[in-house]
């Protein structure tokens, strides 16, 4: 069976005054209907650019998809003309963004903004679209939806705005919902509500979700698959359980170690990854993570690590991935640092 979305060796670069920013450099994954893929990585690792590339929303000529393939239900998205891509956007693939404060247009009523894609893709009249928008607001749990549809975004709280964004994205019943850090700008309690809402709606509508986040913790319950990105590269990809429990990459270990753990008492130490993410113009040679990796050896700055299969459908791009004894927690002392 062909995957719903298939991304192969995707590379998107920005051509700036200071040099070429390799924002996304060789990403591959596939997404099946109704499944959830979590894309995890530090800020600046290329998560948003990956999402925008799939939607073909990279602003040319500064940015360009320089390599790779994106197939939606077997059709090449990159080969489509502008109007074919527009038919996809908002209809088959919808997207919500990080900051619900700024992602809604301040001068249009919320109901109108939700109804807009229905008028566009479903050719509903303005009135019918507005009625449907009210139902959608109700579906995402906004009280008094009929009144609230007439409100402007500034009359909504942050959490309600993100709910409205979700309603907008689900208006045309898309096959894929790309959520780019949908809870980062929200308080912790609201975060949990929004994630719960998304899971619940996914169950109801069968929409596949690409959940972008910098926090592995929040996707633990939701994700079927996890992809970890570092400096524009895919460094680990596989089924969520496998990645969480049998991760093959020291960077992922770092992410896991920096999660606050509820099962350990106060002695449980948080181990943040030291150092700064690299500039994407001068990406370190060999393995991009080597300057910050405490297991780095002589080969690491020299050779780009290939992606190795460390479990079923589970890949890690590290020279030592899968070797005996090279597992999270074992080499903790860091005695092997070159």
């Amino acid at each position, binding site marked *: 069976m062909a995957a719903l979305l298939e991304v192969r060796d995707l590379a998107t670069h920005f051509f700036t005054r200071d040099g070429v920013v390799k924002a996304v450099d060789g990403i591959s994954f596939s997404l099946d209907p109704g499944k959830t893929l979590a894309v995890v990585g530090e800020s600046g690792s290329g998560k948003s650019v990956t999402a925008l590339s799939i*939607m073909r*929303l990279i602003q040319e000529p500064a940015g360009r998809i320089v390599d790779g393939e994106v197939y939606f239900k077997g059709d090449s998205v990159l080969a489509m003309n502008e109007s074919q891509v*527009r*038919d*996809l*956007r*908002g*209809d088959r693939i*919808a*997207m919500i*963004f990080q*900051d619900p404060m*700024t*992602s*809604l*247009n*301040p*001068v*249009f009523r919320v109901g109108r903004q939700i109804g*807009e*894609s229905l008028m*566009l*893709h479903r050719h509903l009249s303005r009135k019918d679209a507005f009625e449907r928008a009210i139902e959608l607001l109700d579906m995402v749990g906004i009280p008094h939806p009929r009144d609230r549809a007439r409100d*402007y975004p*500034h*009359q909504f709280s942050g959490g309600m705005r993100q709910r409205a*964004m979700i309603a*907008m994205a689900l208006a045309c019943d898309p096959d894929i919902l790309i959520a780019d850090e949908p809870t980062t700008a929200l308080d912790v309690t609201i975060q949990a509500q929004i994630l719960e809402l998304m899971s619940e709606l996914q169950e109801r509508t069968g929409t596949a979700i690409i959940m972008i986040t910098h926090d592995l913790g929040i996707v633990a319950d939701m994700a079927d698959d996890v992809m970890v990105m570092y400096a524009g590269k895919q460094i680990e990809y596989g089924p969520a359980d496998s990645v969480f429990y049998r991760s093959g990459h020291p960077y992922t270990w770092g992410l896991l170690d920096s999660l606050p753990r509820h099962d350990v008492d106060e002695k449980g130490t948080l181990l943040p990854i030291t150092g700064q993410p690299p500039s994407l113009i001068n990406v370190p040679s060999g393995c991009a993570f080597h300057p910050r990796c405490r297991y780095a050896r002589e080969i690491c700055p020299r050779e780009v690590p290939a992606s190795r299969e460390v479990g079923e459908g589970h890949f890690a791009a590290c020279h030592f991935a899968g070797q005996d004894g090279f597992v999270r927690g074992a080499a903790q002392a860091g005695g092997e640092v070159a």
Partner: protein
Amino acid sequence: MIKYVFRRILQMIPVFIGVTVLLFILRAPGVLPGDPVRMITGERPISDALREQIIKKHALDQPLHKQYYIYVTNLLKGDLGESYQRRTSVVDIFADKFPNTLRLALAAIVIEIIVGIAAGIISAVRQYSFSDVFVTLSTSVLVSVPVFWLGMLLQIFFGIRLKEWTGGAVFLPMSQMSSSQFPDWVHLILPAITLASVSTAYVARIMRSQMLEAMGQDYIRTAEAKGLTRRAVIFRHALKNALIPVVTFVGIDFGVMMSGAILTETVFSWPGVGREIFLAVGQRDWPVVMGGVIIIVVIVMIINLLVDLSYAVLDPRIRYGGAQE
């Protein structure tokens, strides 16, 4: 909302008193040179009896605050006094001139809106293109060109150099209009372009920068992600946001134009409010100056209020005196 309007109208009262008091002080004996009676009669010799009569008629023997009281009382009755130079009421003079000013202001504002907004949008949508560079350069030049100089340049070019071709149409001052072989609006072209020039350049620049700012906002990406065409994204989502400051500028500018464009009207001998005040200042025709300034102040205040109210219509985030959140 009604409360807000009411408060704004109340706020106009001190401004109004301030302006009129200032004008009264300016004409107090010793502040500006000249004997008020001489201003009225001119240089011809007059009898003491006539002098007495003039002083009585214009209440010039009264103390200043008394004169002010009389003036304001008449003003509230809609009487702005009588011109010193012509024996006509100030209200009649301006009632005669105002339609000319209004016509010129409307023509200029139409140019300003159409040309300014279009140039700004084109310039922003095709950033760094030839059109953008052209708009940016020409607006930089226009904002620094003195209006009267531009007016004279246009007159020389179209009225003298191209006289054969235009038949002198665009050069004629209004006084000759009745005998002109051209329809009225032809005579509006050059003064309207002159009056609109600087503002059009400003509108284009504000429009360009606002449009660029709007197009960089997150909600534009949201609109694109919905699958809207570029045209819909620009003209629906970006434009409505970008227009808000432009509307304010145009509105206030219209207020200024309505109150008479002194330079443009003078250069083109356009018989409007501004030129009338300009002439009255030269002749020390005090009631005309004072009446004219009062009319201007009232018009500007009313238009500013309308602009502020239109802001609330355009930008839902602003609701004057609305319900607290």
